[in-house]
């Protein structure tokens, strides 16, 4: 029974990954130009990302608040909801730096993984991203 539960859990997570890729692909978020066009407020603005993000937020909002009735998640003892409330310097600085990298390349973590094997450039981006993440651990 335990092996079966484990297998189901793994399958559901793989499915979640597939849905994630599908959503990004169909939403056009795997095209850096579409992302940069969204950020190009004063130029050729393309609001596409806004609708994708909006659809995602509303959907997860419904799920998140709807699931509040559940005593516990299906395969874990409890819900792990981030407790940190303070607006810290790390939050501000981190978000600012992330935005710059995002603005330069039009890539953020999710789409970069979906496109990881599309071309060497994106693969190198992912490596650099990993290095950046590893470096950030010194500031934890």
């Amino acid at each position, binding site marked *: 029974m335990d092996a079966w539960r484990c297998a189901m859990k793994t399958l559901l*997570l793989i499915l*979640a*990954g597939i*849905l*994630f890729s599908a*959503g990004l*692909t*169909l939403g*056009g978020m*795997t095209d850096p*130009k579409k992302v*940069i*066009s969204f*950020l190009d407020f004063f130029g050729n603005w393309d609001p596409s990302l806004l*609708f*994708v*993000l*909006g*659809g*995602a*937020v*509303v*959907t*997860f*909002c419904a799920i*998140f608040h709807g699931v509040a009735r559940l005593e516990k*998640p299906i395969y874990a003892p409890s819900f792990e*909801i981030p407790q940190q*409330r303070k*607006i810290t310097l790390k*939050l*501000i600085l*981190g*978000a600012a*730096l*992330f*935005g710059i*990298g*995002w*603005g*330069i*390349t039009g*890539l*953020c*973590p*999710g789409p970069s*993984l979906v*496109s990881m*094997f599309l071309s060497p*450039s*994106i693969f*190198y*981006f992912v490596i650099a991203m*990993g*290095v*950046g*993440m*590893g470096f*950030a*651990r010194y500031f934890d």
Partner: protein
Amino acid sequence: MNIAYLIIAGAMLGISVGIVFITLGKVVGISGISKGLLQKVESWRIAFLVGIIGSGILFQILFPQNFDTPKTGSFALILGGLFVGFGTSLCNGCTCGHGICGNARFSQRSMIATLIFIATGAFTVWMRGGVQ
């Protein structure tokens, strides 16, 4: 791409992180999963990432018109990658973690983070002369 189509694509993202929330109780973004994997290899992270990366390859074949590469030089590309990795790690989230999940939870931290990274992103694009 009409608006309804975009919203449905977004809904798929919402359902995806919703599945992770219902099954494991975790509120996730890709930066968090990747960063966590660097610290500790857990099967659920691998499963999720395999799903994303594996199907990503398939979708590139099925929908090649939806994919493109960044139009930057090598230096800007690597710098961008370092900033995205370092920045998302430092603020504990990305467009998914803060942008989707955090905002859906009405988290003040996430709303502020989202506004900041969109602002600096827009500023960066403006500085570079807009869409190339």
